[in-house]
């Protein structure tokens, strides 16, 4: 009998569920892969290059900032890969690669490292990067190219390979040459806003339209969201709340004037709303933790998106809506503390 048993002291609980941060993040990456694959399929090698550049700059930026701040490298936790992929997916397919690299670097630096890295970022880092390039390169970020061009797997969109620190060449002429059928380079949101043309829901749902690299197919985005929700690696309330908020806000306007204002289904399926609702508003770190808080947060984002779209100068409002939602989520947290078991009142005791 071994009485010299080597025992260790630990504090309870002595059992642990096996899901780790890395696993959660890796599964989000898995859920994003089909979205990336469809983006490459729809827009060709330019998007492949775009996603590669954003992901690489994010990963390298994370490694660099960890080293600079003297922290152990957090590249292995996969969260930065999500940032890189998401950033690439929110950019126009022909976005110049050097600008994408700037966006990636800003996403990590301003969006994440500045706040202290994973767990401390106030806003979704990918959207911080995108917001930066939206302000810095207003033309490039609103230059859209049609999906499913004939030569997309053999030829880069000319703007993609713009020389660093140079303005991209205009692509209109190139599109006119490359285009063989009726696919339009204008995004459904722009068509609706400026020409009151409603793209059919079926096309929006399957992703037959122009738009940011990864936002076009609602179907594939929803499939990724269902996967994550089923594995409890995403709060299902967030996409549901965002979509609900958007639908409910757009409904009265559409009922008032169905020519000027889009129908709720179009609102849900067009632009980046689906991608934002499923993959970006749901960023765990930047969203509230209590169910009540999550509802408030997600409904706010959905409603704000529609308000920006309908009344703002921009055609799309998802990005700013989510960033604002992120910004107010600490505020939401203070008013939505859970009602403690057996307590009469909700929230903090004062």
């Amino acid at each position, binding site marked *: 009998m071994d*009485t010299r048993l080597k*025992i260790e002291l630990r504090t309870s609980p*002595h*059992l642990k569920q096996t899901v780790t941060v890395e696993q959660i993040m890796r599964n989000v990456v898995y859920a994003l892969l089909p979205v990336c694959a469809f983006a490459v399929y729809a827009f060709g090698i330019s998007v492949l290059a775009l996603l590669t550049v954003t992901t690489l700059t994010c990963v390298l930026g994370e490694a660099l900032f960890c080293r600079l701040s003297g922290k152990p490298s957090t590249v292995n936790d996969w969260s930065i890969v999500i940032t890189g992929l998401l950033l690439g997916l929110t950019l126009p397919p022909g976005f110049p690669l050097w600008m994408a690299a700037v966006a990636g670097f800003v996403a990590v630096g301003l969006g994440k490292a500045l706040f202290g890295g994973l767990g401390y970022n106030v806003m979704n880092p990918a959207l911080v990067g995108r917001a930066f390039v939206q302000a810095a390169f207003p033309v490039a970020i609103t230059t859209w190219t049609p999906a499913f061009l004939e030569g997309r797997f053999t030829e880069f969109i000319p703007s993609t390979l713009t020389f660093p620190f140079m303005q991209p060449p205009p692509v209109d002429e190139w599109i006119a040459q490359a285009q063989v059928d009726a696919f339009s380079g204008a995004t459904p949101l722009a068509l609706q806003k400026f020409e009151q043309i409603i793209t059919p829901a079926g096309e929006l749902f399957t992703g037959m339209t122009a738009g940011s690299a990864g936002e076009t197919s609602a179907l594939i985005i929803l499939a990724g969201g269902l996967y994550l929700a089923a594995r409890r690696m995403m709060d299902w309330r967030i996409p549901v709340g965002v979509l609900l908020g958007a639908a409910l806000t757009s409904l009265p306007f559409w009922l008032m004037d169905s020519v000027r204002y889009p129908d709720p289904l179009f609102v849900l399926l067009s632009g980046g709303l689906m991608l934002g609702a499923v993959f970006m508003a749901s960023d765990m770190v930047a969203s509230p933790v*209590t169910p009540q808080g999550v509802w408030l947060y997600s409904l706010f984002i959905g409603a704000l998106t529609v308000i920006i779209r309908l009344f703002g100068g921009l055609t799309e409002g998802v990005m700013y809506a989510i960033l604002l939602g992120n910004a107010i989520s600490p505020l939401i947290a203070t008013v939505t503390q859970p009602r403690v078991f057996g307590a009469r009142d909700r929230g903090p005791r004062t």
Partner: protein
Amino acid sequence: MGILNLLRRNTFEHGIHPQEHKELTCRLPIRRLPFAPRLIVPLSQHTGAPAVALVRPGQEVVRGEPIASASGFMSVPMHAPATGVVESIQLMPTARGPKTESIVIRVYGGSSQEVLYDAPRRVEEMTADEIIQAVQDSGMVGLGGAAFPTHVKMKPPPEHSVDTLVVNGCECEPYLTCDHRLMLEQTDELLAGIRIVMRALGVGRAMIGVEDNKMDAVEAIAGRLEANGPISVHAVQTKYPQGAEKMLIDSLLGRRVPTGSFPSAVGVSVFNVSTLAQIGALLPKGHGVIERVVTVSGAGVRNPGNYLVPVGTPVRYLLEFAGSTPRSNELILGGPMMGMSVASLDVPVTKAVSGMVVLETSDADLGERKVQPCIRCAYCVEACPMHLNPSTLGLLAAKREYEKMANEFHLNDCFECGCCSYVCPANIPLVQYFRIAKAINREKAA
């Protein structure tokens, strides 16, 4: 999840589903453990004031004889677990940490397991106060793990009127099956104990709650109950911590104990099945609590089982009897969710030790996983049975804002079930943070 739980009665909201590991021992009948050569009986193995030794070193004691008396209402006496001689009364290590004044008994070789020291009485003729006194005299404490003196719970504060006795047969801790075996093997003693306590409390209703992973126990009990009688048995959902008294009351009756209050505030008294079975067995004979059933289990144990262990048996003796594997590296007294890992094998089994779980290196490999920043996944928020916000509490603890935790975020409602730490993907030792915060707040208040 929340909605599903609301639709489905017989459970509470939130909680977790750890792997049960009960199959290791749940079919093994209770076996008697031989006497260890030396038994260590701490004078403080219950909540409240320590007992006062009645014996001196060198004095002979008979199995069942009182060896220490209660030092007030919030205290219980101790009885000799075996016939032998008092070797010393000295400070000895205990599982709880600090050394405690203990009576060390050298057991006579070949001494009998029979309890010779008894005082039979007719419990059915006793008044409520006499029963409560008898329960205190038996040294009874909450055998589910709380070690709260049982007789104190039988006298609820006068401003509360208790209408229901809730009998806790949940045994929601993984690995543990001692209550399960007891419900199967000592059903009559359990029911006798329930009737005695019902009389003492003056309640007309008793509800036995058993997790639905022990349907054989539910059936065994139901088979001995009259239909529509005062005692009923209910299967509740298998979910940790179903056996926490506030959760069980909510599951069975839909009553929520107000924060900071005892169950009597909603008219309920909760007793563990093993406590009641011992009351049923001991009171008529006038015996004291000198042994209890302990589940010995875990991958690190060669012969897992349920053992009837004399109080005071050193853990080392129990472990040698059950055998350990070379890879065993952690020894827990109690269950793995709320139990304490011991630093020394010389600590004794006390009245409230329901299990001894030995884990192997490969079991949990908690040591390997590093602590990462909170990613606000909210798993803990959805796990906390008290509906606290462990995520925010954890962030506050890291900033050492202990008073804010208590004053604004209900820290003191945490009963340290461990659900939050269990689910945390970032491996943050949340419960430990909360224990520290509470301890520091207590120190500041003192």
